[in-house]
């Protein structure tokens, strides 16, 4: 079975672009990824696209070339990019194709996401009562986690401050102003214990990745990064999950834990080998919990690790070196490919002011979202 290599990445910076369609941003990200790989669009065998707001990302071919290639659109909530990468990887492994483009693009209005609750297996009254809110779930989940494991609100502020600090030195970030822990704690309380500046925001942007059969990667690059595994999971009975009207008293881990375990097993790599992580920091509490859910630390160790700077760019296990969702926002379909873009950029030693002192060899990317979906990818160089 062929290994899969990433040979090019492209990013249309996330942010606000009034009047600019998501597909236009997607076309720019695709061109950047192709140029980075040194691959002509006419040599691409297949493509996978993901978006929440655009029904058919394959429409991008009108901008980048009507070559007739098979182009599959996938959507899996905040884990969309994980599913898109998994599908692309499988197509290469099956020997069906050798070179593919994975593209994510989106354009959201501001403020917390909303939808028809019944589309998420939640009843109408749940939305009418104001309970159909991801931010409220995240407040409840981290509040219990803090109670059980002694995590402090100061730790949450440190996580957010790190995100803004990384964003400030990332020319492509959306939020480029460093904020102090005091400013973060003093901002408006949205869902206790999470303040305004501890949250990311839905925004706009696109990201693209060129993947190929690893056997031909060296035709295109001296620095291929290998996509060792991608695992996606949904919640099991007993997990405390977003948009749940009720939860069982018997308790099982979150879907991220299941996806991470499967991804590590498939890659033959353990969490102790990970040197850089891109985690779903929809808010600061999520980054704290996801550190443990992907096995980077035990529950409760985050206070000391984060206070000691372990997750900063120069720390032992840097997390969200490009500022993560907090500093970049979340265009849902593209967000996970931004994570991959950053892992690849760091692994090639091309991250500029935010480059890790030692170029990392093993990275993990993790996505989580409503109504309880997760994806974990393992990359190596």
């Amino acid at each position, binding site marked *: 079975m062929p290994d899969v290599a990433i040979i090019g990445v492209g990013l249309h910076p996330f942010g606000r672009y009034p009047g600019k369609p998501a597909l236009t941003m997607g076309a720019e990200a695709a061109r950047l990824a192709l140029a980075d790989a040194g691959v002509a669009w006419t040599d691409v065998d297949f493509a996978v696209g993901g978006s929440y707001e655009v029904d058919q990302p394959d429409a991008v071919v009108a901008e980048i070339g009507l070559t007739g290639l098979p182009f599959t659109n996938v959507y899996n909530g905040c884990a969309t990019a994980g599913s898109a990468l998994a599908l692309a990887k499988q197509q290469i492994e099956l020997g069906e194709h050798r070179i593919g483009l994975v593209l994510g693009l989106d354009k959201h209005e501001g403020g917390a996401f909303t939808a028809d609750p019944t589309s998420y297996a939640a009843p109408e009254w749940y939305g009418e009562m104001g309970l159909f809110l991801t931010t409220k779930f995240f407040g*409840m*989940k981290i509040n*219990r986690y803090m109670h059980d494991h002694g995590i402090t609100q100061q730790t949450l502020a440190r996580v957010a401050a790190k995100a803004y600090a990384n964003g400030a030195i990332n020319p492509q970030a959306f939020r480029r102003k460093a904020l102090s822990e005091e400013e973060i704690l003093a901002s408006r*309380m949205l*869902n206790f214990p999470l303040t305004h500046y501890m949250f990311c925001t839905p925004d706009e942007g696109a990201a693209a990745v060129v993947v190929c059969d690893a056997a031909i990667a060296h035709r295109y690059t001296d620095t291929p990064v290998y996509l060792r595994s991608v695992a996606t999971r949904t919640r099991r009975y007993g997990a405390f999950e977003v948009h749940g009207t009720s939860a*069982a008293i018997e308790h099982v881990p979150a879907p991220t834990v299941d996806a991470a375990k499967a991804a590590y097993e498939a890659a033959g790599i353990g969490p102790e080998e990970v040197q850089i992580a891109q985690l779903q920091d929809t808010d600061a509490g999520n980054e704290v919990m996801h550190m443990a859910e992907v096995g980077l630390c035990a529950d409760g160790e985050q206070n000391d690790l984060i206070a000691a700077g372990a997750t900063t760019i120069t720390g032992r296990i840097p997390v969200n070196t490009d500022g993560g969702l907090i500093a970049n926002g979340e265009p849902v379909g593209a967000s996970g490919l931004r994570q991959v873009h950053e892992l690849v950029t760091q692994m090639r030693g091309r991250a500029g002011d935010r480059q890790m002192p030692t170029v990392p060899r093993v990275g993990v990317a993790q996505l989580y979202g409503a109504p309880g979906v997760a994806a974990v990818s393992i990359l190596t160089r």
Partner: protein
Amino acid sequence: MAGVPIADGLFTWPSDEPRLIGGSCGRCGALSFPRRAGCPRCGASGPVEHLIGARGTLWTWTSQGFAPKEPFNGAIGEGGLGVPWYVGLVEIPGEIRVEALLTGVSEEDLRIGMPLRLVVVPWRTDDEGREVVTFAFAPDPDGQRSSETEEVGARA
């Protein structure tokens, strides 16, 4: 208090001692709320009606510091919700944890493990001028704290 329930089949009403209407699986016994067409644990169809206990303890909570977008339709301000309001996950011992609005609480007195009881509260006035009511949990002065809810520092 009269009033029209926010949804049918959600809680017993009118009643002096309202109860939430859940489902109980005939195959594996798992409880669910609200009652669904299938069991969330084993997938068997047709869970039967199960009235969930009216007393429990607070498993976790958060504040709601902004007005949700549609389909939220609660009344904020005079006679309605004050911002922030509070929501939580309430553990009904031996049964299930239920997400609900919390009423009669403030940030200062909310504690994980505090005893709560089910109440029915006014929610909004509908287009026909009828009062719509919904369920919430309020502090239960007669209840007992959950036994395993000490803070981490106290437990260590």
